[in-house]
């Protein structure tokens, strides 16, 4: 299973719910406003860093760029993918749960 989160962690609890209800090892893809969780030096950075020990975390590049964020703004260990990479993740990891 792969989880996607499209909400800002500063505004909604989608990321929290995702972390509570995902088993260890399942990847998480951040997209749309969800990409804000991937940025360095924020009030949620620690939470995201802790989550990385249980989940590989991916972030959608086009959504970062649209929001004025570059790869250099992204926390270490988070992988940037494009839409093709998103498709590959879904192919590889099976069922998708979208935390809306």
């Amino acid at each position: 299973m792969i989880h996607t989160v499209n909400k800002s962690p500063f505004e909604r609890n989608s990321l929290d719910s995702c972390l509570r209800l995902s088993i260890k090892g399942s990847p998480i893809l951040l997209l749309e406003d969800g990409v804000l969780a991937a940025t360095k030096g924020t009030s949620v950075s620690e939470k995201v860093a802790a989550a990385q020990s249980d989940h590989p975390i991916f972030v959608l590049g086009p959504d970062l760029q649209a929001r004025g964020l570059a790869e250099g703004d992204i926390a270490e260990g988070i992988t940037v993918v494009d839409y093709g990479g998103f498709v590959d993740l879904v192919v590889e990891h099976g069922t998708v749960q979208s935390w809306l």
Partner: protein
Amino acid sequence: MKFGILVNEGPFTHQASDSAYHFVSAAIEKGHQVMRVFFYYDGVNNANKLSAPQADDRDLVKLWGKLATQHNVDLVVCIAAALRRGIVEENLADGFRISGLGQLTEVGIAADRLVVFGD
């Protein structure tokens, strides 16, 4: 691999339909089959041919329709959600068809993956 897609939002309030469109395009480019895109909730507004975005904006209604024609993607608008929102045959954009919610369950069963885009 066979994909089914669920789009829960219209083209002008949320990014969901844009994300779904880019996902579907990328999947097709990689040689996957997108069996059906099912439009539910405000997603039915993606099929409103009376929608007229400004010239410098993308026109998702037309983009979806073009994708359907070029790549044989079945675009289904949920009838119950559509009627609530005034989407009927008369204003249904090219490439879309109106059908029942059973078509969502059906593609869920038939496809290898169902991906939900919403808000």
